[in-house]
């Protein structure tokens, strides 16, 4: 770690008066530090920055007077007033960060000595940290790490004001960050976490998140269909369920009013509605993106929950609180299940057809039901009806008129999952078969690199559940009758097929293959996206998501019987001091050998010692070389360049990069082999 002793010191004695270059470097550092915040700050900050920084620049270049105390205090009061006006408060994350940035900016007006400049750099480091209050993404982490290195470089530059060695300073700054890494890792792993996220701050609005709503009116999932945003990621402990099994249950909608499906608020909210066999249980971890909602999506059908979750109606899962942040849940689901019973009131709701308007559709349902031998047969009849009557899967269907169900079933016959689920459910009810709508997601993309499933907003789906006396609620997906590709290949395949004008429903395997095979470029792009998503997911899982639970389980893994915050703190203090002591020791030890030439020379001596020629401590380079040549005259051509170059640098004062390269080359070429010479060293 010679860089530390080389040039790095915070000089207190002779300091150079800050000049134009110093100011420019500081302004640079400042802008780099606030750049992640720019979109969030009030617009008048730009004006403030221009005024303050120009003023400052003029103070240095044109000898304009430094503002006096009165002016400075007035500006301060005005700025604080404006901040209050903008945020209505001076507390909280947004206002706090804006205040920190504004005050740092104002500090520029009172820069005088080097000390003030250093203070601004420290403030910039604080500002860098506040960026994490908004985002903890990997990209931002990389960017801010780079900014920290630049801030360190600026510090060194302010001290030395030597522009010829900027690259060297940058390297030293990077090494400094590297030196801090072990302690940073220890702090990260062991520092006791507050409940909540890593940087969780209360009381700020979370808006503008896309996601499912708690009602369904055919036509609304539409927006989601186009969004490539990720809804959640799933890691399976067991083998991956097949495409046909990947129904992610979100909400069960039982009330139908004015063309809109809603949840039944009085529905039974227990988790014991189903029977299942342990063989059909599948375990997985689901990392759900922030939704601002409470529902948790789980593979059909969830059977267990962790603490902090509760049951929603119709065997669905809910979070206790609104999910402002990503949430990771470990869930068990049964792929084969049977609902056990249904109350009278539930039955009534699920057979309610009061909101359905239109004579023709009622007639159709009754007609089909009359032809059926059983409820199950009726289901097949209706599905066949979809298949045989030119229904089209279409993501931009025509609008439905006054009687939405009837219009869809008999007139437009074009739509997507919502239309099919909605109409199918109503067809069931019209014939007296209890039925309801389930919304959630279907499918997902397998990420080979990360071994997890990505479910996007575009995978949003709606399907039906029909009550059959012998088997309880049975999942029926009417969309699959029209567009089986939706279930088999996912929504992106559907979109591609539609774009290419292919008719869905009866495509041959070959046709599908040609359509769905990607070009090399788009395939590698896709692979890269998946790869990057994998990296990000791990980042969230292991770094951002690392919380008190992980700490406790880690402590237990290390064999601590009692794992609590006290042990964490003791461990933290002990290990951090250990690391610091080790680092200090290394630094202290290496201080003696800071000269790179000496290091090269030591490599040469080491190689000689391997062949049995050991330099005595008090042997000078020339004397040693003479002895080496006496013992091994054949090494002459190898030894002399090393010794000459070393003496030239060390004692003749020919210190140049060229000379140093010469030494490095000579040492690299110095390979005396491993054959030991027979010595009688007596």
């Amino acid at each position: 770690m010679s860089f530390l002793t080389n040039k790095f010191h915070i000089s207190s004695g002779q300091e150079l008066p800050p000049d134009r270059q110093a100011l420019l470097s500081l302004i640079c550092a400042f802008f780099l530090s606030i750049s992640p915040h720019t979109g969030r700050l009030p617009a008048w900050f730009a004006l403030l920055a221009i005024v303050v920084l120009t003023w400052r620049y003029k103070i240095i270049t044109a000898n304009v007077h430094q503002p006096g105390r009165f002016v400075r205090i007035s500006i301060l009061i005005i700025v604080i007033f404006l901040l209050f006006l903008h945020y209505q408060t001076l507390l909280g994350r947004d206002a706090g960060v804006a205040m920190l940035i504004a005050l740092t900016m104002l500090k520029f007006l009172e820069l005088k000595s080097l000390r003030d400049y250093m203070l601004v750099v420290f403030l910039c480091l604080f500002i860098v940290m506040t960026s994490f209050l908004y985002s903890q993404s990997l990209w931002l982490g990389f960017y801010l790490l780079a900014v920290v290195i630049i801030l360190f470089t600026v510090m060194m530059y302010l001290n030395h004001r030597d522009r010829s060695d900027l690259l060297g300073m940058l390297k030293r700054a990077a090494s400094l960050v590297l030196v801090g890494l072990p302690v940073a890792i220890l702090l990260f792993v062991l520092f006791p976490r507050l409940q909540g996220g890593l940087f969780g701050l209360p009381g700020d609005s979370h808006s503008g998140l896309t996601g499912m709503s708690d009602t369904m009116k055919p036509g609304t999932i539409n927006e989601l269909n186009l969004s490539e945003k990720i809804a959640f990621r799933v890691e399976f402990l067991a083998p991956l369920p097949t495409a046909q099994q990947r129904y992610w249950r979100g909400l069960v909608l039982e009330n139908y009013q004015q063309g809109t499906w809603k949840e039944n608020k009085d529905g039974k909210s227990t988790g014991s509605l189903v029977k299942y066999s342990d063989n059909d249980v599948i375990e997985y971890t689901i990392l759900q993106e922030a939704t601002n909602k409470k529902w948790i999506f789980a593979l059909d059908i969830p059977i267990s929950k962790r603490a902090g979750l509760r049951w929603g109606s119709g065997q669905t899962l809910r979070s206790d609180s609104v999910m402002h942040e990503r949430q990771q849940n470990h869930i068990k689901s049964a792929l084969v299940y049977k609902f056990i019973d249904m109350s009278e009131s539930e039955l009534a709701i699920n057979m309610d057809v009061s909101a359905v308007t239109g004579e023709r559709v009622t007639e159709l349902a009754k007609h089909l039901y009359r032809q059926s031998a059983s409820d199950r047969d009726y289901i097949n009849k209706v599905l066949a009806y979809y298949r045989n009557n030119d229904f089209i899967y279409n993501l931009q269907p025509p609008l439905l008129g006054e009687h939405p169900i009837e219009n869809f079933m008999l007139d437009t016959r074009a739509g997507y999952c919502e239309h099919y689920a909605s109409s199918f459910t109503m067809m069931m009810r019209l014939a007296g078969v209890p039925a309801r709508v389930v919304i959630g997601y279907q499918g997902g993309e397998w990420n080979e690199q990360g071994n997890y499933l990505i479910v996007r907003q575009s995978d949003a789906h709606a399907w039906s559940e029909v009550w059959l006396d012998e088997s309880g609620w049975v999942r029926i997906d009417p969309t699959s009758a029209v567009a089986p590709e939706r279930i088999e290949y996912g929504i992106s395949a559907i979109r591609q097929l539609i774009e290419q004008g292919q008719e869905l429903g009866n495509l041959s395997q070959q046709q599908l293959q040609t359509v769905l095979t990607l070009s090399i470029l788009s395939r590698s792009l896709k692979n890269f996206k998946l790869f990057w998503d994998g990296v990000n997911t791990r980042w969230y899982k292991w770094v951002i998501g690392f919380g008190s639970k992980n700490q406790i389980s880690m402590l237990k893994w290390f064999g601590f019987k009692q794992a609590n915050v006290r042990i964490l703190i003791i461990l933290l203090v002990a290990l951090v001091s250990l690391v610091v002591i080790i680092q200090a020791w290394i630094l202290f030890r290496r201080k003696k050998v800071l000269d790179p030439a000496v290091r090269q020379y030591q490599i040469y001596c080491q190689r000689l010692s391997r062949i049995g020629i050991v330099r005595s401590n008090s042997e000078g380079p020339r004397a040693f070389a003479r002895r080496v040549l006496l013992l091994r005259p054949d090494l002459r051509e190898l030894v002399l360049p090393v010794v000459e170059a070393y003496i030239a640098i060390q004692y003749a004062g020919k210190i140049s990069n060229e000379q140093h390269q010469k030494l490095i080359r000579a040492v690299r070429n110095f390979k005396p082999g491993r054959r030991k010479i027979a010595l009688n060293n007596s």
Partner: protein
Amino acid sequence: MNTRFNEIRKFLNEIVLGKEKQIELCLCCILARGHLLIEDLPGMGKTLLAHTLATALGLDFSRIQFTSDMLPADITGVSVFETADSSFRFHKGPIFSSVVLADEINRASPKAQSALLEAMEERQVSVEGETYALPEPFFVIATQNPLEQTGTFPLPESQLDRFFMRISLGYPDRKSERLLMEKEDRREFLAKAEPIISRTELIGWQQKVKLVKTRPALLDYVQDLIEQSRNSPEFSNGISPRAALDLLNGGRAWALLAGREYVMPEDIQDILPATIGHRFSLSMEQEGHVNIGLNPAHRLLEITPVQ
């Protein structure tokens, strides 16, 4: 320059047989403007060496035989009343020569010794209020009988410290001795010999010594040596600052003699025993048992690491 040195070396070695190392140290001593102390038995060729040096370097030479009844004036000179112009005139003593051989210095009383040593240090002589500068270059070769011999006033440490180097010639080896017996009388040869270099050339070299480079790495090493001599319990007293400077200057001169413009640790190691051997010693407890007969200077070199 190197060839000129070689000429001198050749000349000296032809006359003083089998003493290459001592001759080299002598030259080093002159180049570094230091004074030399030779500790040896009588008849080892001390006078010859001094005389040869003076001849080779084109310097005038005088010899002072120290005796127990010697007075300072016998060295520095006296003011004598001249009847011709009725005034005192200073008659320069034998010390006013460029090469002075002070023979058997430890036979004289301390008073006489200190007169010589003061002149050596200050390079000038003060007699009755008048100051007379000594010639330039000025080089004293003092000889001293081994202390065990009778009738000696041993030089105190403070006086020893003023000598740049102490060497001993020792007996010649068999081969050199035979040559010595076979060859013509060297004193006659010396009387006929011409100087090899001029006084001004020698002064020029003395100036050049100051220009020989000492890099931080070398200074580090010298300081390590000094610290080691002062801190290690093995030695009774450390190297004085004057000795340290002498060490450095000696290294410079030694490097110049080797034709180099920079000093290496080996230069220091070569001259260290002669330069500081007489100025520090092993501590009593060390002397008591293990290291009997060990030269403290060599021990110092051994325990001080060098890169």
